[in-house]
């Protein structure tokens, strides 16, 4: 890239007017708009912004299985940000997970998904980022026990599991379906949370979307075809959820709340339709029927539910759609991995505020008044009542999560 004195779109536009021949390629409105939209689809802002601080200036702590690492500054400030990066440097990071000095980046940076983005898209993101206000901000030292070894371990991990290369459309499918598949597996990195991981942290079956767990949240199965977690959701339901944070089935409140707040609510409706179309095309195997839980636990669970939960979620589990999620049929409640259910009961929840639905509703925390066996009982009750049949939760499961969250 030549001449990076340009720091804002307005300035860029003025320069373009002055010498259209030299810079029009990089800073045209269309190119910057493409980059801006690419940043939305990749949810860059959520991870690269410390709480309440300048956007894109990084320094946000992220928990990984190895310890806490901080996101870098991706404004184009020269000393602390990407100011000295070339387009090629940026492509190497986004496409191959390699930093400017050649070191291996942790896949906490979702480059295993961003690698599906074509070169032109990545260049547009680079151009757009170059126009943002430059912020001088050093990132704190990572809190990793053996940083060097871990970067090496990631190299090994990459050799085994990393499959670089842009998205290849399926010619047998429609343009919209391919767009949906690209957004889900590429910039949207939905599988990063919604797929199970193997021991080394790679998606088990490359992005199968059958449910996963991240940072003490379990993300449910989001396959929308027969037997999928979203089998009961219509196209419109999926679009509404990603656009407003809520629909008649559910509302987002966890790490998914950030995905919606910074990314999907800003996507155009056509892209959300494409995601819905793609997810609805994914069938799944029927689920195993777990054993019916202990009668006494269900009885206690029912009382706890009646006295604590039914006021909002109603005794027949039908809830108040778009305000208090129905628990009957909820994908989060029926998820074989009950982490999210237990956590919501322990800590409470707040539905994500969005432009369309700016007023969030909250659920109070119950961790202070229900002990582990009571939380297990009420979780077991909601997972095995109405038409839900998802197996029992033990007091030990609750105790373990309570401890992890306290750390």
């Amino acid at each position, binding site marked *: 890239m030549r001449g990076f004195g340009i720091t804002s779109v307005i300035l860029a536009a003025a320069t373009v007017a002055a010498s259209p021949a030299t810079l029009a390629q990089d800073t045209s409105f269309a190119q910057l708009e493409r980059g801006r939209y690419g940043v939305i689809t990749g949810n860059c802002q959520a991870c690269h912004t410390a709480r309440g601080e300048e956007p894109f200036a990084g320094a946000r702590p992220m928990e990984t299985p190895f310890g806490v690492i901080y996101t870098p500054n991706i404004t184009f400030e020269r000393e602390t940000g990407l100011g000295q990066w070339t387009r090629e440097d940026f492509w190497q990071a986004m496409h191959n997970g390699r930093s400017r000095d050649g070191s291996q980046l942790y896949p906490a940076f979702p480059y295993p998904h961003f690698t599906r983005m074509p070169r032109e898209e990545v260049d547009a993101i680079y151009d757009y980022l170059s126009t943002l206000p430059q912020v001088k901000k050093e990132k704190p030292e990572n809190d990793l026990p053996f940083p060097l070894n871990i970067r090496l371990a990631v190299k090994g991990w990459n050799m085994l599991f990393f499959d670089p290369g842009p998205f290849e459309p399926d010619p047998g499918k429609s343009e919209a379906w391919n767009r949906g598949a690209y957004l889900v597996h590429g910039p949207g990195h939905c599988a990063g949370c919604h797929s199970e991981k193997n021991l080394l942290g790679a998606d088990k079956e490359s992005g199968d979307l059958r449910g996963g767990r991240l940072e003490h949240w379990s993300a449910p199965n989001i396959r929308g075809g027969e037997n999928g977690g979203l089998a009961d959701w219509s196209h419109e339901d999926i679009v509404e959820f990603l656009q407003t944070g809520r629909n008649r089935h559910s509302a987002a409140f966890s790490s998914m*709340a950030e995905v919606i707040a910074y990314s999907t609510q800003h996507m155009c409706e056509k892209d959300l339709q494409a995601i819905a179309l793609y997810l609805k095309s994914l069938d799944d195997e029927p689920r195993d029927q777990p054993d019916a839980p202990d009668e006494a636990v269900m009885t206690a669970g029912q009382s706890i539910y009646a006295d604590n939960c039914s006021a909002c979620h109603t005794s027949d589990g039908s809830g108040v759609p778009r305000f208090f999620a129905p628990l009957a049929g909820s994908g989060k409640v029926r998820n074989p991995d009950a982490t999210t259910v237990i956590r919501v009961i322990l800590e*409470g929840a707040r539905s994500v505020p969005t432009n369309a639905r*700016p007023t*969030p509703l*909250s659920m109070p925390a119950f961790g202070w008044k229900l002990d582990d066996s009571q939380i297990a009982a009420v979780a077991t009750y909601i997972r095995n009542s109405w038409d839900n049949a998802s197996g029992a939760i033990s007091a030990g499961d609750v105790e373990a999560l309570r401890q992890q969250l306290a750390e």
Partner: protein
Amino acid sequence: MGTMLASPAFARTIAGLPWSPAQTSTPQSLVGQHFLTAAEKHCLDALTGRLIPSDEYGPGAPEAGVTTFIDRQLAGFFGRGDRWYMQAPFRDGIPGQGYQSEHAPAQLYRRALASLDAFCRATFGGRLYAELETEAQDELLRQMEAGDLSLEGVSAETFFGLLWENTIEGFFCDPLYGGNRDMVGWKLVGFPGARYDYRDVLDHNGAPVRLEPVGLMGGPQWRVD
């Protein structure tokens, strides 16, 4: 090792009203806090046991833990009068003006219980209030209520007013605070406890609605075993 992709450690940057996970303002049960001595508790059991005695309708105040309730309250901000204006001058005031004593509630109890027992010892041949026949105990309570008993260094009438109020509170409070043990007070009057949803029983067609009472920390029906 679970996963390498990580999500932000702080998930609270989204706009909207402030909300933090796992943050609740919890009730202060004051468990384990004590103010009263054994002798004072003995006297208080006898007093509250005459105000709400055990009878054919069920257990009375001492059995319901009213003394435990009052003991904990006196050990906390209530006992210290923290939320009241407690500066001189101290004048009698009119009844509508509320608490007028120069003694914060805990000290009022301490003085009144000591004076009452001293009065009884002097008047009833060395016996404490708790050792009197119930008729004599009731008579003393009546005199205190009417302002006809003079106790050394404290207004018996003021003490009676506070004692009566606190006894009722201890008998009907949430069991979390030490009184209303096994929800005996609520069972007596048919109060179903701290519930906030009656939609399931709205169509009762005039029949009495009998719900097992539930406290803030639940009840036997929440026990898993």
